[in-house]
């Protein structure tokens, strides 16, 4: 079969990092960093999901096509978010309640 059997050690290491990052993200949320709070939270979340994707989902050991699928999905999500937010950030009017 296609599978690439990883040593269990890798799974445990990734698990430990993920748990640590969860604690880290909670801890950071209680510090006052201004707008950096959101950025930090998102950075940690992205980091965690990259680990899950690369190791738990074996993408690191997968064919290029799988990489293309993963990157493609993020790219299209980016199109949705960027072009939609582009409108909201440049509207001259303001919302009200």
């Amino acid at each position, binding site marked *: *079969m*296609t*599978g690439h*059997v*990883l040593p*269990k050690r890798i*799974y*445990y290491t*990734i*698990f430990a990092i*993920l*748990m640590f990052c*969860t*604690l880290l*993200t*909670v801890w950071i*949320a*209680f*510090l*006052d*960093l201004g707008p950096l*709070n*959101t950025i930090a*939270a*998102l950075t*940690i*979340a992205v980091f*965690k*999901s990259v680990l*899950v*994707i690369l*190791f*738990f*989902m074996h993408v690191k050991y997968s064919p290029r*096509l*799988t990489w293309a*699928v*993963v990157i*493609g*999905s*993020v790219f*299209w*999500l980016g199109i*949705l*978010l960027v072009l*939609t*937010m582009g409108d*909201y950030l440049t509207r001259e009017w303001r*919302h009200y*309640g």
Partner: protein
Amino acid sequence: MPDVTHHPALAHQFDSLAQQSEATTLGMWVFLVTEVLFFGGLFATYAIYRGWYPDAFAAASHELDVTLGAINTAVLITSSLTMALAVHAAQLGQRKALMVFLAVTMILGAAFLGIKSVEYYHKFVEHHIPGPSFQFEIRISPNDGGNPPGKLADVELLKAHVQIFFSLYFVMTGLHAVHMVIGIGIMLVMLWLAWRGTITDEYYSPIEISGLYWHFVDIVWIFLFPLLYLIGRHAH
């Protein structure tokens, strides 16, 4: 890996188990792409309203229980580990270990849903379910300007915006929970396949693609947790 042409699990349209496994794995990945964009619509909605109503979102986020949220995150990550170990066991043809890990994964998934329902119940008791009976008592000042909460005049508007947060909270976590339920159902089928002995070190792609799905649901939560539970926590 030898090319097995007459394996009982080989469907007629494929030439080999390898081709079949590649095809089903790709199919699951493509399905996950649709899932990314499905949740993507919600994340876009979230981004816009959080940008518009940062104070209301912060005030509403304070109503969520960080401890339960964090515990649930840990539960899900652990379930992802056991899922990865289940795939590992399947790859090595360790049927017993596979069944144990699948079962543990299911139990952790169920635990997640249990904790989630406790949270939902709290929200129900506190009337934080959007709709006519929605109630919200402002505990922090939306402007951080040191105004005593009771003196805020436009509580009604803040309430409407808080309600948008809770609407998003319920839609996002609700759809996530639906995915968890489906995931547990898949695990049940996998457990049955493993018990029947269908899963072998030659044919384990059902376990592999179920694992992809499970990890994806985990990733969604990895984003939901900070986005919903951890807004403006430093204020108090």
